């Protein structure tokens, strides 16, 4: 036991000596001069490394095109996403009688629709329907996306987006991908799980997305670009107190746009659930 205590004391003494040694003036095993040298060395060394890394990164960044990413192989086909963004994973829950329960959704939708207001769109071009709107530059113009297309789901007809009436609007949009040129007539198709109880309306009619909104040329070139979207209005049957609807959407009509993927549940498809309380 005494031996242990002694060694403990020794240990402490050694540590003390290590932290500051009076006789040699060593602090943490090095003298001030030695510390100075080593710090200077690391300052220079790391300075050099940092400069080198910055330089190589700078060179790498300069090989990039500022307008179009070098590769787009990781996003060959767009995903489908919905607005408003539900709080939990793709489940909308609200109570018709309680406006606060859906105020978040409405704010989200409004935010999303902001670029689509007439005022924002007045500088955009009216493009010919039904064909790809390919441009050569140097100035790229964006096509108008008339909100009217969304009919009942544009905030012009109902600023509440139907939530209070049990007819909530959800917007389904296709992810932007630079240079994507779908063929055929892509449309967003709805598959409703429990059809008998509910009625579902898609605006524009049948969820058709006009080809004139493609291709996309990237934020820098394609200023003011409005991505096409589809509005979905679910009319929940008014008779029951609590209603639940599961809806699934997928892109159809264009073989290039994939809508089936084992791993990616959002590649060309999206599924969401709406639960409305009275």
């Amino acid at each position, binding site marked *: 036991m005494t031996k242990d205590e002694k060694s403990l004391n020794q240990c402490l003494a050694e540590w003390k000596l290590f932290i500051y040694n009076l006789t040699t003036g060593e602090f943490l095993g090095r003298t001030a001069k030695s510390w100075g040298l080593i710090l200077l060395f690391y300052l220079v060394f790391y300075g050099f490394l940092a400069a080198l890394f910055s330089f190589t990164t700078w060179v790498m960044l300069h090989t990039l095109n500022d307008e179009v990413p070098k590769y787009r192989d990781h996003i060959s086909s*767009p995903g489908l996403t919905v607005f408003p963004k539900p709080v939990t994973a793709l489940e909308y829950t609200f109570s018709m009688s309680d406006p606060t329960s859906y105020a978040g959704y409405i704010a989200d939708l409004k935010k999303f629709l902001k670029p689509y207001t007439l005022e924002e769109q007045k500088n955009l071009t009216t493009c010919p329907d039904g064909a790809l709107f390919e441009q050569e530059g140097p100035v790229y113009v964006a096509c108008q996306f008339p909100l009217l297309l969304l009919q009942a789901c544009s905030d012009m007809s109902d600023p509440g987006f139907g939530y209070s009436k049990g007819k909530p609007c959800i917007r389904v949009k296709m992810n932007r991908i630079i240079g994507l040129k779908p063929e055929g007539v892509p449309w967003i198709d709805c598959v409703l799980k429990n059809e008998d109880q509910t009625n579902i309306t898609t605006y524009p009619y049948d969820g058709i997305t006009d080809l004139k909104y493609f291709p996309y040329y990237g934020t820098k070139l394609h200023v003011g670009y409005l991505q096409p979207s589809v509005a979905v209005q679910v009319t929940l049957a008014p008779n029951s107190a609590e209603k639940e609807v599961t809806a699934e959407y997928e892109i159809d009509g264009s073989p290039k746009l994939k809508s089936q993927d084992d791993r990616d549940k959002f590649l060309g498809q999206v599924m969401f659930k709406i639960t409305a309380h009275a």
Partner: protein
Amino acid sequence: MVGGFSILLWVGAFLCWIAYGIQYSSDKSASLNNVYLGSVLVLVVILTGVFAYYQEAKSTNIMSSFNNMIPQQAVVIRDSEKKTIPAEQLVVGDIVEVKGGDQIPADVRVLSSQGCRVDNSSLTGESEPQPRSSEFTHENPLETKNICFYSTTCLEGTVTGMVINTGDRTIIGHIASLASGVGNEKTPIAIEIEHFVHIVAGVAVSIGILFFIIAVSLKYRVLDSVIFLIGIIVANVPEGLLGTVTVTLSLTAKRMAKKNCLVKNLEAVETLGSTSIICSDKTGTLTQNRMTVAHLWFDNQIFVADTSEDHSNQVFDQSSSTWASLSKIITLCNRAEFKPGQENVPIMKKAVIGDASEAALLKFSEVILGDVMEIRKRNRKVVEIPFNSTNKFQLSIHETDDPHDKRFLMVMKGAPERILEKCSTIMINGEEHPLDESTAKTFHTAYMELGGLGERVLGFCHLYLPADEFPETYSFDIDAMNFPTSNLCFVGLLSMIDPPRSTVPDAVTKCRSAGIKVIMVTGDHPITAKAIAKSVGIISANSETVEDIAHRLNIPVEQVNQRDAKATVVTGMELNDMSLEQLDEILANYQEIVFARTSPQQKLIIVEGCQRQDAVVAVTGDGVNDSPALKKADIGIAMGIAGSDAAKNAADMVLLDDNFASIVTGVEEGRLIFDNLKKTIAYTLTKNIAELCPFLIYIIAGLPLPIGTITILFIDLGTDIIPSIALAYEKAESDIMNRKPRHKKKDRLVNKQLAVYSYLHIGLMQALGAFLVYFTVYAQEGFLPHTLINLRVEWENDNVNDLEDHYGQEWTRYQREYLEWTGYTAFFVGILVQQIADLIIRKTRRNSIFQQGLFRNKVIWVGIASQIIIGLILSYGLGSVTALSFTMLRAQYWFVAVPHAILIWVYDEVRKLFIRLYPGSWWDKNMYY
């Protein structure tokens, strides 16, 4: 095996599982990566354990083939009947009979004996047969003549005795229990590995805690911070190193086995390299354990006989007719015979029936004269008196082979002074001269000189019996002694010794130049011990003991200045009276030390004394008496052929050819493996930082995770394994045998410089290179470096499926994940490419790579090829297996880190250049590992 290491991995595994537990409790869908990682860690420990066990078991198998265990039988008198029973059924009080050739079945007190001599060499180290009789001659049971010891062999004669001890209570049993009572010391390499584990653990825990604090202050949840903490600690665990070290050690063990050093305990491979003192037994290790004629004296001259293993060239003058007479006596006055059926065996290797000195004489004459049995046949033996301890001579009378000479020839050999007493004439140049004072004096000088060499001297004389007194029909009677035994003609002296093996002096010199002190510790007599020590160079030619100086200056021993003597011979008796401090003083002050007449306990004390000097002690030995010291030593080396089973069991290493010179090979291999392990560890530690940095950046800057756990595992246990083993094949940078043994406490396997240089220099450069590849991949896909910062939360959110990149494109979660995996693969390739550079720079620590030769070690290139091939397979072959999270990487990304790899090489060359240019400078001190 490598205990500290496995513990580190076990701790890592448990931390992984704890982390998973924490994650699981908060999120049921938590990724199983941590579970996999933990399991892999455990798997590594288990596989390595099995491998090491298999390696060691293989050595043990080779060992066990040596023991041909024949159940020992004993002849016992019970119920007044002779019975043969298994030796283990003997009890104290049994009366046993043992005859020549048998093993003594227990400790036996001699009741009666007829010319019994036993071989005690395995017990006491005495090469010469020891006579046994019923007289009590000494207090010490090991010294007295009336006790035969269990497991020794009765060489000749018969003995009847009473069993006084059996089993564990025998002297051998005591020694065995002494050996088993000695704790197994940690091997130096185990201590080094432990030290290394401390460093790694220290680094891991401090980085972990530092980043835990950072994470908490960055407002991460505490639970997440704990996960980070565990992640950082686990990331520091070098998963591959345990296996690499084990394989490396066993490769060296294999290499050493080829050179006849069989390593029983893998860790002992390195121990020889750090050995600073070798305590060598004499008999059988330094010597051949076979009495051999070393000198002859006739015609007033001393002749030297060849004592090498094959007796090939006997160069002394054989023309004198004195030699003709002497050789006749040697041949005829000898009862030893070759065992039949050995026609094709070289003479020196033939088995002989008879005692050691007679066998020596037989072989000596067989080599020089040819067929001894034929000569004996031609000179028919009429009568003989065998050697006994009262007469101290042996006599026989023969017919001569000259058909015209009808005289009988009487030949006699024995203790020189007794032989001389019986002589009145001496043969010089074939003529008989009267033996006067002056010839007697020359005889004594020669006798003293040969005796002083530690040799056993025999005198030879003869007499032709006059034909008229002893006609052909004369009947000789040995009891009546009806023939003369005085006034004989003295012919010459022969001296014998157990000579040193011919390779030993060279090996001792090599040990010396390698800074290893060789101490002889033997049970044999001091004079013999000293003579052998001198002849093998343990006491070098120009150094003297205190006694030598006293003798030279003709002054009493007490007046000699102790400092003048470089060498000393200490006997067991002197050792008994010494305090430990005195022993320490002797061990510290004398360069050349011989311990003689030591008991097994004293061997142990000597070894402990050496260990107190902070030395790494190797003990070589073959006898049972050596086994406790073998066990106590840092490395015990037993003799494979001559060694007793007890010695082999206690040892860590077995010399298959019994050759001390093999130890030198072992030292060389041990030192090389120490250097190469340093390189392996430095290589392995480097990428640890490159693997850890991404995680740290991920926590602090919120980048998408640059490299995943599984990917790291594929580096640690995949691409890096063969290269790090390849470093074990690296040749030495300089002559490692001209260097002092490493200091146990100063020259560490992993020192501060190694850790700092690997972590903070090369490791960091590697991390930067790998980050460059990572950023390139992300940037070219649309995520520029600045957009990545603090993207982590959104990036990893499963509900965000339209994350915008720099160009306005929107990514689903899975698309991002796939990009993340491409990032992993890119980072992996970045590390891989730079590890190739790391591997090349680790080939040397001081010399330029170009001095060492880029292509001399072919295995390195196999390693590099394996790295690239495994990398290609992972990326392109298994790129579609989701669980592995590798993707097909564009070919050009393989080259992004190449400039960094070149930079690493250049930087290290510059480092080495400055080290070579300015030895001892600030740079050397801080940068040389």
